[in-house]
């Protein structure tokens, strides 16, 4: 067998995963605000209603709470709904159904029922998304037993994780960052699952381990290039799935490097970065001295004006600078030159 070489975008990979599963399994359907809209949810749901009928890719009223309950109810009846949210922020309207119901139903009824739903949650950024359209609240869901949380960053993993999420018998919060949609990568045409709970080492290195989440994986890879230029070899790990979390791969890397920087696309307080650091310390304390650090959103609501928004997010340069400090063991006041990320720079509104 030859290695696959076809390159498609992250958005197309998501589309392909959903379409393939809908083809294979009549119990899979997609719904949510705007999924059959002319814009097709960034193309991720484009013509599903044409291919599979208007019953299997349908728009809804603005009723996030009940629609989540509808997804759960349909799942109880044996269906596999994919519920799409235009922004992660809108999940705050359906926390009751997600946390009090979906997360608990298998346990509450001692395994009598299952809730196989996929909750697609798109993270906004750019063009002044602001405080209510830019949040990434995965740590809230990581906190709750009974939910799975995944955040693939490559087109390959987007497709494989989506297929795995659809087939999973549990509620899966599926995090997508809209700055990833345009990224292209090699994606096999056939169907495959990317199993949850397995991290990926995207780049090897001996000096420092950088664990990055969602769009920050892209920025961290860029940071790694800057770091190479000053002789620091970073190992870049993408957890892919956050709950379950493959802490083994991270611990092994940190055992080697002795240094850990976690870069989240979220706030740090009680965030995924706190969890990863705590687990690494718990495992390595008394065995290996480690230096840890974490980065994430500034601890403020996201401002819309570009100069402040730029400061709100970590970027390749600030990640490199922080990693350099950690690698050297003290503040070095080094900040590499470099442009803003291409996908952000090129992004045009209107939204």
């Amino acid at each position, binding site marked *: 067998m030859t290695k696959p070489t076809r390159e498609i975008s992250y958005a197309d990979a998501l589309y392909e995963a959903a379409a393939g599963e809908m083809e294979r399994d009549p119990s899979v*359907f997609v719904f949510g605000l705007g999924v059959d809209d002319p814009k097709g949810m960034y193309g991720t749901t484009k013509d599903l209603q044409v291919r599979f009928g208007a019953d299997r890719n349908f728009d809804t009223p603005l009723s996030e709470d009940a629609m989540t*309950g*509808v997804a759960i*109810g349909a799942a*109880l009846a044996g269906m596999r709904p994919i519920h799409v949210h235009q922004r992660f922020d809108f999940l705050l309207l359906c926390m009751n159904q997600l946390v009090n119901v979906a997360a608990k139903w*298998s346990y509450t009824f001692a395994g009598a029922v299952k809730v196989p739903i996929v909750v697609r949650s798109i993270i906004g950024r750019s063009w002044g998304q602001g405080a209510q359209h830019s949040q990434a609240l995965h740590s809230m869901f990581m906190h709750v037993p009974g939910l799975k949380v995944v955040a693939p960053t490559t087109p390959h993993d987007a497709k494989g994780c989506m297929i795995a999420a659809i087939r999973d018998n*549990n509620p899966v919060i599926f995090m997508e960052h809209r700055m990833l949609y345009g990224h292209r990568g090699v994606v096999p045409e056939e169907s495959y699952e990317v199993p949850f709970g397995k991290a990926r080492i995207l780049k090897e290195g001996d000096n420092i381990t950088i664990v990055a989440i969602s769009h920050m994986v892209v920025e961290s890879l860029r940071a790694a290039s800057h770091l190479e230029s000053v002789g620091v070899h970073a190992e870049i790990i993408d957890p892919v799935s956050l709950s379950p979390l493959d802490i083994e791969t991270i611990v092994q890397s940190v055992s080697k490097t002795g240094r850990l920087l976690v870069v989240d696309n979220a706030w740090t307080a009680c965030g995924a970065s706190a969890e990863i650091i705590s687990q690494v310390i718990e495992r390595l304390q008394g065995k290996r001295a480690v230096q840890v650090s974490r980065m994430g959103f500034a601890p403020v609501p996201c401002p819309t004006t570009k100069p402040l928004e730029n400061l709100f997010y970590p970027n390749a340069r600030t990640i490199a600078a922080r990693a350099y400090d950690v690698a050297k063991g003290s503040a070095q006041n080094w900040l590499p030159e470099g442009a803003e990320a291409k996908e952000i720079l090129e992004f045009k509104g209107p939204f």
Partner: protein
Amino acid sequence: MLAEIDERVATLTKEAKEHAPALLSRLYRALYRIRRVEEDVARIYPTDKIKSPSHLSLGQESVSVGICEALRKSDIVFATYRSHAAYLAKGGDINRMIAELYGKEDGAARGKSGSMHLIDMSAGMMGTSAIVGSTIPLAVGYALAERMKGKDTVVVVFFGDGAMEEGVFHESLNFAALKKVPVLFVCENNTYAIHTPLHMRVPKPNFRERVEAYQIPTRLVEDGDVLTLLKETEAAVSRIRAGGGPEFFEVMTMRWLEHVGPGDDLHLNYRTKAELDSWKAKDQVKRLASMLAPTERQRVEADVESEVAAAFEFAEKSQYPADHELYEHVFHD
């Protein structure tokens, strides 16, 4: 009184009328069974053997019985934390229910969830929730799914008058009506949410008007009359099964005991004795009892007594779940 009963029986559908004696006996059994279970739960409660917040259906039995009698086994029921009646009326296993209240491993949820989360999928009882209103959209989603699968299942969801104040109720109505899903919404209007009467919660208790604005047909049953309920449900269910879309019942009723737990609560002064007594006068258990031949009545009661006693004994004898069960079922394989 007897004339009135005859009249009501006469209004039953043809099939029901032919089977009237058997039907009345069946209804009485269902009512009496719930009554006796609730009485025994109330009796046992102070011993601390049931360490599970129990919201008794005592007084409200007829709502579940009248409605579930009109359902097929394959039809589906969702309900609330106050669902001993719905669970039993839909055919839920009595042993597993009492064991669940006792927190034992033979319980419907292996003791993990108690009175507020009853399920028996083999009977089409799809579960209950301790969060007010939270099963309403589940019923809508379930019904949507059944229709997508080409089945003619009808889904019934029971909830209290308080649940109608939650936004999710309205979102669910709108979606159910839009998609014409096969759901029967049943509001058990006992006029109180814990201790708060209707007039402190809504400008006017015209729930049916609210629902009709969503183009959903409604029925009011004012006295909890089990025969009227049965008749109305048979008609509604056949309309719904035929694809007519969702319907809504408002059934007036009254709980006899406190909101949660086994006691009276007249001393709290949020409702009057006269109000409660007026409902006790309409007691459907007594009424159906009076409609049966004495021997039949005794036969039913004896059956139920031994069934209920056996259920409590079953629960007493069942074991607590083993420690390792704490970690089981968080995820489904």
